[in-house]
């Protein structure tokens, strides 16, 4: 890129919105696909309303917000897994989503085979995965379980393996979505140390309900509520306001209803 200011922005969103289509009956999808040009068969369910965001290279962003506020959807949209329904989005750089890699593991196959598949899914060449295999196994630290079927793994071991694969992708943008919650304290510290190291060169997008992690890792916190950015800035500041709001505002039961 010729202009240096442009290339320093890795994620840029303008008025970004995502509405899922809620259908009363399952087969209305088909009608929508066939006759959608004439009539719409769905109720739009807005998850993201109006997100304006600029993320510079090297920043670490912590996303806060209650369940269903749209954090995960925002990250999925940024990763390019699902298209936004309106607004503009530009992302530059290789993204590695540590969203739920563990859930793609084939339970019948061994950890080793799942590393080969997981690496391929994250865009590594076969030779690269083979070269990095020992390092991946060492980071995961699950020893002889590597050659056992994944169905015998505990949740924590799956997370270890999944994170370990993601840590070896050499991504420019790393998206971590509550992935570390199930690991034990020692492994969490290992991951946090690794992320600390990663932050020197890459950009981190981080979702967590652990405020301590956000405070430790992030240079900026973004508080998302109801599909909009409610507040962003210094992590300590945002976390304080977020906590205050959690105490004052009740857990609204109508939060997940479509009719709004």
């Amino acid at each position, binding site marked *: 890129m010729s202009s240096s200011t442009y290339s320093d922005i890795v994620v840029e969103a303008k008025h970004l919105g995502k509405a899922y289509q809620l259908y009363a009956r399952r087969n209305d*999808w088909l009608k929508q696909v066939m006759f959608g040009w004439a009539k719409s068969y769905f109720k739009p369910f807005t998850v993201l309303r109006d997100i304006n965001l600029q993320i510079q290279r090297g920043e670490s962003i912590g996303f806060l917000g209650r369940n269903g506020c749209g954090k995960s959807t925002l990250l999925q949209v940024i990763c390019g897994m699902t298209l936004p329904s309106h607004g*503009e989005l*530009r992302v530059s750089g290789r993204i590695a989503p540590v969203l739920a890699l563990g859930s*793609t593991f*084939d339970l019948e196959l061994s950890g080793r085979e799942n590393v080969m598949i997981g690496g391929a*899914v*994250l865009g590594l060449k076969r030779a690269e995965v083979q070269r990095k295999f020992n390092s991946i196994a060492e980071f995961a630290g699950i020893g002889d379980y590597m050659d056992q079927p994944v169905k015998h793994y505990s949740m924590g071991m799956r997370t270890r393996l999944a994170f370990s694969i993601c840590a070896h992708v050499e991504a420019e943008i790393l998206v971590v979505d509550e992935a570390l919650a199930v690991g034990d304290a020692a492994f969490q510290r290992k991951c946090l140390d690794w992320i600390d190291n990663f932050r020197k060169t890459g950009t981190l997008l981080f979702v967590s309900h652990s405020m301590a992690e956000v405070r430790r890792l992030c240079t900026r916190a973004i508080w998302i509520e109801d599909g909009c950015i409610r507040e962003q800035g210094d992590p300590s500041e945002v976390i304080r306001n977020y906590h205050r709001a959690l105490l004052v505002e009740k857990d609204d039961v109508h939060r997940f209803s479509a009719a709004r």
Partner: protein
Amino acid sequence: MPSVNVVNGKQIVVENLGPVERTIRFFYRPFGQMWHHRDLIQAILRREVAERFKGSIAGWVWAVVAPLLAIAVYTFFFAGRLDLPREYMVTSGQNTSYALFILSGIVVFNFWSEMAFRAPMLLHEYVHFIKQTIFPSDMLAVISTLRATLYTVISVVVLMVFQVIVAGHLPWTWLLLPLILIPFVAFLVGMAWFLCAIGAFTRDAGYLMINIVPLFMFATPVFYSQTQLPPPLDFWLYANALTGYVEVMRDIMLVGTLPNWQVYAWTLFTSIFTFYFGYWFFDRYRNVIVDVL
């Protein structure tokens, strides 16, 4: 250049291409994608092949046993009960000619039916990959067809060995087999793209296939030859695209003649058309599919 560039739900492609270049790109794209994702295709294909005989001790032996069993059963039940056209009497014994005749039809039909059964549920099988990772979902149709190709090749080898034993020789036209097998694979990949996209929207596609695939066994010249049908039925049987593939396969594998060029042209047409129609259809709905699954 940004790796993701989206405005109002539309992916922005930065190049400004004319209609000719766009057409060339469309025809080239599926192959470009396959090449780009070759390591992923390989990794998942390995898993799929391993999965087929998971927990089995005999493993690959089953892939050989299935066609052998088919030979035995069909020889036993149909020997002498159906009229076999003269050109297909390729061995001295009538029973073995029947077995070869039927098995060559079964190979084509099984290949097709495996894909027809599986394709509607294909994206559901891989829903975790599609929803939680950046996954090229269009490659699933390619991978599943490649797996089925592997088993078809095993059946073809069994057929070849059987033919050498009972007929004593192979016609040279066997060498032309790739010229029909490759179009057939392309046909099936296209069909899988179409069916898996439909199957993502509604499970009815899967139930429909379960019901109509067995009927197709009789609408395809597996147990008979299209030449035995009265006109105009023998012509209209070609509306079932499988007819052409079965006929060409039998011509080159059993009879040892070059296929009728009109029939071969028809199979090429159905192959190329289905391949690109399937890809176009899948590509059109791929972004919707992620949200429906």
